[in-house]
């Protein structure tokens, strides 16, 4: 399977994603330049973390207008997998691929830490190799990760099983203490209506090696492989 990793000016996790896909998964990956209009036959698109366009105006607001986003949006609309980690999630919300928005962390601090995520829906294209309720160790590194949306949208996301990861404590409780950024309802990752677009603030691509403290991110990528290949 071929993964296309978009490089925007200011992306800085594109190599992390490339490493996870090629070295850990053993799959093919290509970098896609933001100015191009060509996904180079990629099956899965990754919008990586970073600070695209210097976070000018709002996080993700300018990257959304990059030429390649037209092809990425068409790919998503066709039902093919598109995932965004961190800045990629922010870009997806700005582009309307996912609902809601990501605002400055409630405590105003940039957080770089290993956090726990609870798998809220283990049937999704991105989670089918996890157990429901399983706790994962995945790092975060962001200053603008507070997920917000209207109450109606939050209820809809939860009701349809589209919140797939929440920040949890060591006992699996969804508590305010375990919420690293003030996100509504501890939401860490959501999927679109079609279930083929994932946005999450944590970095599973940085949790694919014992050397980095966790291998819990690997099964997210393997879940995509198992679902798409099936």
């Amino acid at each position: 399977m071929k993964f296309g990793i978009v490089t925007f000016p200011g992306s800085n996790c594109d190599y992390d994603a490339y490493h996870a896909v090629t070295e850990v998964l053993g799959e093919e990956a290509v970098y896609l330049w933001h100015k191009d209009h060509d996904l180079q036959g990629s099956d899965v698109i990754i919008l990586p973390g970073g600070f695209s366009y210097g976070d000018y105006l709002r996080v993700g607001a300018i990257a959304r207008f990059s030429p390649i986003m037209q092809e990425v949006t068409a790919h998503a609309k066709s039902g093919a997998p598109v995932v965004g980690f961190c800045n990629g999630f922010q870009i997806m919300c700005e582009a309307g691929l996912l609902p809601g928005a990501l605002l400055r962390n409630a405590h105003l601090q940039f957080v770089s830490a290993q956090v726990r995520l609870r798998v809220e829906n283990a049937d999704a294209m991105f989670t089918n190799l996890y157990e429901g309720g399983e706790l994962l160790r995945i790092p975060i590194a962001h200053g603008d990760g507070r997920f917000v949306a209207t109450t109606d949208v939050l209820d809809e996301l939860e009701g349809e099983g589209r919140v797939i990861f929440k920040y949890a404590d060591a006992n699996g409780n969804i508590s305010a203490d375990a919420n690293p950024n003030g996100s509504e309802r501890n939401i860490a990752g959501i999927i679109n209506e079609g279930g083929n677009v994932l946005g999450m603030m944590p970095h599973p691509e940085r949790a694919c090696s014992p050397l980095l403290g966790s291998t819990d991110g690997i099964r997210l990528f393997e879940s995509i492989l198992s679902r798409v290949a099936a």
Partner: protein
Amino acid sequence: MKSTFRIAVHITPRKGLLDPQGNAVKGALHTLGFKPVREVHVGRYIIIETEAYDALAAEETVTEMCRKLLANPVTEDFEIESAVPA
């Protein structure tokens, strides 16, 4: 005949949403002794110069810019000032 107009845009966090930046500034103002301060909201101020046939057309264009890019419809409100010749 088009001429150039200048329009100022104010973008503010939507009322009711947590505004940590505003709260941080409010705390600092209280520390400085400005105790009567009740609310502070931090937003953006954008100045745009654009060509248009008249002030109304310029304002309509900038309103569209706000909807499409300058403000996030989920989290922000915007107001534009009257267009003036640049």
